[in-house]
């Protein structure tokens, strides 16, 4: 039997043909490709799961700042409020997911051990969504592990379809965006969704992260990465909810990936992990950069500050006022 797939369409066809969940296909693919036993594959994923949990547990308690003091302590602030969710707009599950996402990424920023799933910058979304839902549903550990397999299967489909995880290539949409897509698929399977609903959820999730720039202050994985993960987690949950309610994405997942790469081709170099554009060159961003003692940004990247908006541009330029 051949469990290989090159994109999401083939993945779904495999699931239908064999009447399997995405996670089963993922496990069988790995067993077949690398000639490993099922327990070997599962145990390796258990190590991934345990590392994620450790990072969350440490992160929600620690208020230690990162080296340059840009992040640290926000996870504690959110985590103490999860039982007061009546006061907030989001449900308890979502607030807890935010706390977990911040916790994971803060651990990353202060040199803790994390899983780069898919990368270190987007590592918060997946554990946040999965562990928060796991605690809410009191679901079995087995389902939780399967959700991780589903998420990785989606990652493979994205890579095989010409996608990337590198922010240097495609901006933040490829890190946090892909993280959101994978988390949405994983959590949908955990809640009992069909393979179609899983892929639909990931399409809805990734669609709403398209075009996101990678513009970290001073090139560090701190601002805005940490909070982007937290809000990414809520997007993944919203996508999963909508998919479970029967809302369908008009554009299928494969084509959303194509769109992502299409956008990346027209993205400027300054917003692809170079710290030369976007938030990195705002007034506060530049001030913090100076404080960190990093070399100043070349003047040619700061041209936009000198351009004054003309009156025409201000009102939309319809020439209506003559």
């Amino acid at each position, binding site marked *: 039997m051949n469990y290989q797939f090159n994109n999401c369409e083939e993945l779904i066809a495999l699931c239908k043909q064999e009447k399997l969940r995405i996670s089963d296909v*993922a496990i069988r*693919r*790995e067993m077949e*490709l*690398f*000639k490993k036993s099922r327990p070997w*594959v599962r145990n*390796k*994923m258990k*190590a*991934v799961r345990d*590392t994620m949990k450790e990072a969350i547990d440490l992160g929600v308690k620690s208020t230690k700042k*990162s*080296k*340059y003091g840009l992040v640290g302590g926000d996870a504690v602030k959110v985590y103490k409020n999860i039982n007061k969710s009546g006061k907030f707009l989001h449900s308890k599950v979502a607030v807890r997911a935010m706390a977990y996402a911040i916790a994971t990424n803060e*651990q*990353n*920023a*202060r*040199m*803790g*051990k*994390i*899983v*780069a*799933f*898919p*990368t*270190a*910058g987007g590592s918060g979304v997946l554990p946040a969504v999965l562990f928060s839902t796991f605690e809410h549903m009191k679901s079995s550990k087995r389902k939780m592990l399967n959700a*991780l*397999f589903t*998420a*990785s*299967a989606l*990652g*493979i489909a994205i*890579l*095989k379809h010409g996608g990337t*995880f*590198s922010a*240097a290539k495609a901006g933040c949409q490829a890190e946090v965006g892909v993280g959101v897509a*994978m988390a949405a698929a994983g959590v949908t399977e955990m809640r009992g969704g069909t393979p179609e609903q899983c892929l639909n959820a990931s399409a809805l999730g990734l669609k709403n992260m398209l075009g996101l720039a990678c513009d970290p202050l*001073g*090139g*560090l*994985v*701190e601002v805005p990465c940490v909070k982007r993960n937290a809000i990414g987690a809520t997007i993944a949950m919203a996508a999963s909810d909508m998919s479970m309610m029967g809302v369908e994405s008009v554009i299928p997942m494969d084509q959303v990936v194509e769109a992502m790469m299409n956008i990346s081709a027209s993205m400027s170099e300054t917003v692809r992990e170079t710290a030369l554009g976007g938030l990195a060159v705002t007034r506060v961003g530049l001030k913090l950069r100076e404080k*960190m003692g*990093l*070399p100043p940004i070349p003047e040619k990247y700061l041209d936009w500050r000198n351009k004054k908006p003309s009156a025409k541009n201000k009102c939309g330029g319809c020439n209506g006022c003559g």
Partner: protein
Amino acid sequence: MNISLFDVAGPIMVGPSSSHTAGACKIGQMARALFNGTPTEVDFYLYGSFATVYQGHATDRALLAGVMKLRTSDPRLQDAFDIAAQKKLKYRFIPIKKDVPEHHPNTVRIILKNKKQNLSVVGSSIGGGKTKITFVNDVPVDFEMMAGRFFSILIGHDAKTFSLGPLYRKMEDWGSVIARQQTICSTKRENHCITVISIEDDYLKLAQVMELEKLPGVEFVRALTKLLK
């Protein structure tokens, strides 16, 4: 290239950046494995974005930790400087501000020294924790390591007396299938070549590696076993 589930779900690593921390640590490990001994002094020449943001991304600690054989997931990576002080390992970081177009943006040259020998390794971190070794002792090599899928051996030899025949025969006797083989000779140092052999789904024992070292014309054999995990 076959993508594994764990290329997506992983690596398990110490933050903050997969290319600047985990990748750097791996280059350090490679350099140490190639050195085959205990270095007393190590210099790091940092290029490209390694030179500008190495402190914020803890690239310096990661490189040093790799040279001291710590894994990418070892939480002691933070204390690399203290551990180096305990081990009496001298280290220097020299950022090169000049643009070097032949190198990937994230590149480091590591020079390891002790009383007997010295070794220079140039490595690049090419994203997502993947690394590439481009020069060993100024001999250009193309040595890519994807999450340690292959077991690789590196054979330094001279061009005249060494031949691949006996090597292949030995490997055949042991039943090891060679996935990739590559021989490169230095343009700078005459008669000085390096052969890289990658073996899939198998590895050589220490005794076998020692046996390879006895082949005529071989200067050194290095097996990169420790990097498998």
